[in-house]
């Protein structure tokens, strides 16, 4: 019989296994309860298996994005998009297109995340809204809401999207039919959709940050941030925290569970123009009026890198690989320069990786999911740059700065927990009813007698405790006394034997 030349399972490279490591290995406790032992060993085994399996299957998930490489001495950012389109394969080249929509611009752009099919949503400042099937480039719907449009956002499916219009927040379906007009959400300037929580977070001109649960249609939280007009907003995809940029140079972090900003960071000397967080939730990139572009480590809330730009810039999106898109606007020429930086956090002095010029102001840019494509909405239309539900809905209470908090035992004290309970219930369940003395006639309810009656029942529980402790003390003292007496009496007398 032939022997297997490669016995056992195929080996997995160490680094790939390390990538999926979720916890440190635990020591098996010795001489411990058998149940504990079994539990721990079982969980260890399961986690090891999961890690290995994930590492094995990782092969099927090629996440490496394509990249651009110039000749010797050639700067990649001088390569124009047209050249790239000529160079790349047909299918990739076909993804590059330009929509000339000069009438209703500038445009906001959004791709929807879920589903096999990617859909593109365009919202023009002057009321033009269009949904386009990304693959087939079919126009799904096109309407004009006859009102200023501040932002557009896909909701959990490709059938619904929210449009922040001049006054209210509207929700349309993919055929362009208005489903809801939500009056509670007024003057919305920016929106973010938290896909795992089914929450639509809106930032309004009246400095309100509101959360709408899309699955139930209920407002989850409305927070008055008291920081003026909120037109800079992004979300941290890792922990669903909303980041808001303010005109006083601060960036604030919000969750629907607290009325107060979780964190307030002073990032710029001027107002904050744009904020974006990378997918892993590690880095935050901000740009401000002080012509600076800053990279922060949001886990430590410390600035990592500061880049000075000649003009102040907008920046839009980041990708996990450290891809940041900046746009500059010439004040007069009306043209806009888009720059794409790669590996902003790892390279010491980041250089633009690609550059592209568009006409009109850039108003929105989004990377297309699953593709090396960036959609840019600007004043003159839309340009492309080449480069899965309800059951698993996460409750909004679980949004916190540290998403691992849920996996930790609550070590709060009893008092704290009691306070939480009181807060949640609205009353103290352990509180005793206040004693109100009965009204008696014939002058027996005089102030003095009422006080006396009150005194009779006051601190009853405490009195009980005190009584008990005093009794205990007395008993102990008596015993001690007896013992001492016995000791004092010294030798045993003959009659002691008759004692009990």
């Amino acid at each position, binding site marked *: 019989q032939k022997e297997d030349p490669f016995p056992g399972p195929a080996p997995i490279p160490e680094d790939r296994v390390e990538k999926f490591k979720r916890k440190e290995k635990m020591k098996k406790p010795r001489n411990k309860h058998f149940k504990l032992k079994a539990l721990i060993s079982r969980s260890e085994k399961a986690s090891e298996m999961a890690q290995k399996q*994930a590492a094995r299957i990782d092969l099927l998930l090629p996440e490496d994005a394509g990249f651009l490489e110039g000749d010797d001495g050639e700067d990649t950012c001088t390569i*124009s998009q047209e050249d790239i389109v000529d160079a790349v394969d047909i299918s990739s080249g076909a993804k590059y297109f330009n929509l000339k929509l000069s009438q209703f611009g500038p445009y906001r752009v959004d791709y929807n995340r879920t589903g096999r099919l990617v859909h593109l949503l365009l919202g023009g400042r002057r009321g033009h809204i269009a949904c386009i099937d990304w693959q087939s480039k079919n126009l799904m719907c096109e309407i004009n809401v006859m009102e200023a449009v501040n932002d557009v956002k896909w909701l959990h499916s490709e059938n619904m999207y929210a449009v922040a219009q001049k006054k209210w927040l509207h929700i349309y379906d993919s055929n362009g039919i208005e489903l809801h007009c939500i009056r509670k959400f007024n003057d919305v300037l920016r929106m973010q959709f938290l896909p795992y929580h089914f929450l639509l977070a809106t930032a309004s001109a009246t400095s309100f940050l509101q959360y709408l649960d899309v699955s139930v249609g209920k407002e989850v939280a409305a927070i008055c941030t008291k920081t003026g007009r909120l037109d800079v907003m992004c979300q941290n995809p890792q922990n669903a925290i909303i980041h808001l940029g303010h005109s*006083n140079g601060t960036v604030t972090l919000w969750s629907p*569970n607290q009325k107060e900003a979780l964190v307030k960071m002073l990032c710029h*000397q001027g107002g904050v123009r744009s904020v974006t967080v990378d997918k892993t939730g590690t880095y935050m990139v901000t740009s401000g009026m002080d012509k600076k572009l800053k990279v922060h480590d949001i886990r430590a809330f410390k600035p990592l890198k500061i880049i000075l730009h000649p003009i102040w810039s907008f920046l839009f999106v980041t990708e996990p690989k450290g891809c940041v898109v900046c746009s500059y606007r010439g*004040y007069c020429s009306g043209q806009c320069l888009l720059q794409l930086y790669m590996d902003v956090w790892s390279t010491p002095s980041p250089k633009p990786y690609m*550059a592209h010029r568009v006409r009109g102001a850039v108003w929105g840019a989004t990377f297309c999911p699953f593709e090396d494509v960036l959609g840019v909405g600007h004043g003159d239309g839309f340009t492309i740059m080449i480069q899965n539900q309800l059951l698993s809905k996460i409750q909004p209470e679980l949004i*916190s700065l540290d998403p691992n908090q849920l996996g930790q035992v609550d070590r709060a004290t009893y008092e704290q*927990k009691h306070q939480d309970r009181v807060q949640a219930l609205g009353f103290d369940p352990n509180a005793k009813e206040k004693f109100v003395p009965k009204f008696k006639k014939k002058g027996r309810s005089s102030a003095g007698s009422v006080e006396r009656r009150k005194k009779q029942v006051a601190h009853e529980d405490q009195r009980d405790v005190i009584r008990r402790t005093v009794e205990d003390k007395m008993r102990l003292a008596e015993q001690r006394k007896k013992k001492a007496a016995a000791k004092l009496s010294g030798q045993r007398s003959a009659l002691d034997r008759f004692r009990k």
Partner: protein
Amino acid sequence: MAKVSKKQAIKKVKKTKKKSDSAEETLAAVPTVAYDEEEEEEEEDLNGNFSGEEDEEDERRRQKLLEAISSLGGNRRKRLGERSEAAVQMSEFGVSVDGEGRKIQLSELIPKSAPVKTQKQLKTLQASTRTVDSPLSKQETERIQRDLAFQKTAEEVTRWKSLIRQNERAEQLVFPLNQEPSGPRPVDRVALGWMAQTPLEQEVFAVLTANKQPVHDPLLTPEEEASVKAMSLGEAKIRRAELQKARALQSYYEARARRDRKIKSKKYHKVQNKAKRKDLLKQFDHMVQTDPAAALEELKKMEVARMQERMSLKHQNSSKWARSKAIMAKYDQDARNAMQQQLDINKELTQKVVTALNDDQEEEEQEEEVMPECINDAEEADAANPWMRGRLSQDPEDNEKTEDLTVEVENKGGEEEEEEEEEEEGEEEALLRKFDSRRKQRRAEEEEAAAAAAVESAEEEHKDDDEELTEFTNLLRRRQQEEEQTKVETGNPAPLLEEGLMRVRTLEEVEQLGQDPGSEENPVAADPEPALPPTEPPPETRKASKSKKRKRGIELQEVLTKQTKVIAVPLAPTAEDVEDGGAEELDQRGLIQEAFAGDDVVSDFLKDKRKQEEAGRPKVVDLTLPGWGEWGGTGIQPSRKKRRRFRVKPNPPPYRKDKNLPSVIISEQRNSAISLHRVSALPFPFENHAQFESTIRCPLGRTWNSERTVQKVTRPRVVTTLGAIIEPMSREELLKDQTKGDSGEKSNTNPVKEKNTHHKHKAGNKQKQKKK
């Protein structure tokens, strides 16, 4: 009359006999009293018992008895008993027995041939005055029985304990237990599991096994296999010739050995022995090199021989023969020589490093070695069918030769190699040493460099921090000073006004800010074409930074003045015009905004932060009651002592999370919303938080895991097959489990499954078995 008395007597006897019997069996048992009234049988029994001792008396008694019995029959005439001798008692029926007065000995009731032991026992039994206990009450007996039964069943049940525990702890139980895996099974396994059950099957099986028919692997019988393997005619002939040759050789060897043994010349044997010894030595040396294990064994043998020699007096001239020789030695040279030889042998053998062997052993070995083993093999092997043998045994001589050759070759080769290796080793060592020294040097250099770099970097960092610090502290100081000054000047605090007038940044600083893009740390950025040339920072600040290098602990750091890296933006060609055009014609508003950017942003932020810190700090509770224990009234403050006494100082608050982050305010509010979803207390088997948190650390969902992992991790604890009957566990399971336990294996592959319900079933099982 006589009849009745006799009956009584018989009864008595019977009783006692019974008693004795029962006493013999179980002393505790209570004799059951139940009699048959068949007198004849009893008589016979009695007759049997009464043979012996005093024959005459017995005879007489018997006679009397017979008469009495016969009188019971048809002759109903009563005869008065004869009065033969004086008796104490006279029966009213006129019957008198000789030994009526005395008691019957229990031992008399059993035959004489009965063992002495029983007799003794009976005697002691009779002697004992203890009365027999009255039988236990029904309840008590039942209780005892129940108790015993319980013990028995408990023992039975405990046997299942390990199995049940195993099942309780099993990760998953699949009911019904011990299911056959679905799908076709391999034929081998089916055949292995099959047992002959019916007699016919058994018979067939027996026949098959007797004829070595294959049972499990039904391809070929061993005979068939052998025949398949058998040789062709030519081969067979060659084989036969070889065998013949071998046999002839064997006979030659034998004959030669016989002749050798008959030779009486001692000299011949001596020479022979010497040669053999030499050979042996050579072999041993050879063995030491090639096969150290065998050599060791040989050495051990020698050691044993030496030990034996040391123990025995064989060669020490103390034997009978030696003594006789000693007498002869005076006159006979040969005798002297012989004795000397013996002593020599002794010496040789008792020497510690020896290679020679005992004479006798040598002889034995000699005899053994005379015949090569292969020849014997040829004969010993079952010669019934030489054709059926697997393969030819190789020619012994050839084999040996080839072995020797190879060994020699190997030996030579090995030596050469060794030499070469030594040489190589020498060279290699030299090389290695060189390398080592070089490596060490390099390492040392590197370490030095690294240390230097580390120091430098640390210094740089320090500088950075300190610079920031100093700048910020300067700012702060200036502010404080100004505040103080204003306080001093005005006397009354006027913060509102002050704030309006205060300038956080001086003109110099603004200038510096303008410069700082290119300043200070540009070498790190290492841009080929920096937009602005690097300029030296103002010397004063440098100095200040140096002087305050060691100073730390200022809680606020300037973040905004942190060194910035300008990127010289190599703009796309298309963008240049934008740049140029844009730069000159900046919006007026933008310009103003930029110029005054961050004017009060920092101070606002600081104020905000301080406010937050203040709010988070627990307040001092002042419980002083003005006018209590002293004079009160308007304008009278309670005394300082009193105030100090009644002021409750709270514990210092825990450090804020943003203590070391000057540009960040982190909210210290507790997120109570999530606490409803969190585990509030450590669950049972866990002993610390880390254990529990680690076990729930890994996600289970499909988003993070492969499908297989999800299935494995979330598999249910109990699985039942739809429609299958779940039988209680059978006794075989237990046996299987025990055998498994004996063999030390754990049932991992097919864990035996059980549940609590089965516990109950078992009791039922046992009862059933008992009934059977």
